[in-house]
């Protein structure tokens, strides 16, 4: 079997939100499989420690708030031309619909979708995305199966899914592919603001037919595939990865 088709060797990849959780693992997996990566996040200390865990190479790190749209030019300027982009940075705000506040709505849309749309536009304008590149969005299974309190978050991720499909269509003539990953529950820092107790979490885990929540590596391996040449004919796909959660 030709395993080299799964390799990311020689590829240069941007992973947003790679200072922790899923994005951190995606960056490390890319590094381990031969890619040169650009990692980003606001927390410089955590970003530095991810950088230090990468295999040696010409990797770069950029720290800043992606919702500070003017600063995105700085990021685009320091970047090498890209063979892969992983739009992973994101936040959660749990609030029942009756309690949604306009400032929270603005913030979560800025971080989860607007920053992405603006960043992609800037990357394309500055010709930082190579022909044949692969763009991967980290959305959520919650766009397929709703959960209480996540309306704002789900609305942003639904926007991600729709935007990604339009992008896939417009970029296909350049040979640039765009796909979306829909993870189920992966315990990471994003859940720190959650309202579930350990017992409630254990109860929720029973909704996963595979018998466990995901871990960042589960997601990173799928992303690796989507970034690699093995997935050359895939574009515009929304791919659930959720231990069977959405089956029930």
């Amino acid at each position, binding site marked *: 079997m030709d395993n080299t088709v799964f390799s990311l060797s020689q590829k240069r990849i941007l992973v947003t939100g790679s200072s922790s959780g899923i994005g951190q693992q995606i960056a490390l997996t890319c590094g381990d499989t031969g890619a040169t990566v650009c990692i980003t996040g606001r927390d410089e200390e955590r970003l530095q420690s991810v950088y230090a865990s990468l295999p040696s190479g010409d990797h770069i790190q950029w720290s800043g708030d992606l919702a500070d749209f003017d600063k995105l030019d700085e990021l685009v300027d320091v970047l090498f031309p890209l063979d892969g982009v992983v739009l992973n940075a994101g936040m959660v705000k*749990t*609030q*029942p619909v*009756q*309690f949604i506040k306009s400032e929270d709505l603005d913030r979560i849309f800025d971080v989860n979708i607007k920053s992405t749309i603006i960043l992609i536009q800037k990357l394309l304008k500055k010709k930082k995305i190579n022909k044949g590149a692969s763009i991967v969005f980290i959305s959520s299974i919650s766009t397929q199966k709703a959960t*209480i*309190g996540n309306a704002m978050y789900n609305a942003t991720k639904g926007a991600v899914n729709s935007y990604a499909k339009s992008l896939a269509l417009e970029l296909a003539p350049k040979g640039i592919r765009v796909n979306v990953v829909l993870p189920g529950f992966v315990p990471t820092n994003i859940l720190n*603001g*959650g*309202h579930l*107790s350990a017992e409630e979490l254990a109860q929720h885990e029973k909704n996963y037919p595979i018998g466990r929540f995901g871990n960042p590596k589960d997601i990173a391996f799928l992303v690796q595939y989507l970034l690699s040449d093995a997935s050359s004919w895939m574009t515009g796909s929304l791919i659930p990865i959720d231990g069977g959660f959405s089956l029930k």
Partner: protein
Amino acid sequence: MKDQFFEKLREILEAEDKEISLDDKFRDYEEWDSLANLSLIATIDDEYGVVIPNDEFKKIETVGALIQAIETRMASL
């Protein structure tokens, strides 16, 4: 504060005439669910301007203890 809080709780539980007392363990109400849980936290923030940290909130069992936690935080505002 007590009566106003009881009224808010009834609204959250969508149980207009519910008997509520300070010793009630609110998570044991038959109307209690995850939406009620989130709505209670949001109501405390909206109505009293205080946020009870998650870890502390999870440990509070009774309506009375919850009111006390809100009052303590309001006093230190």
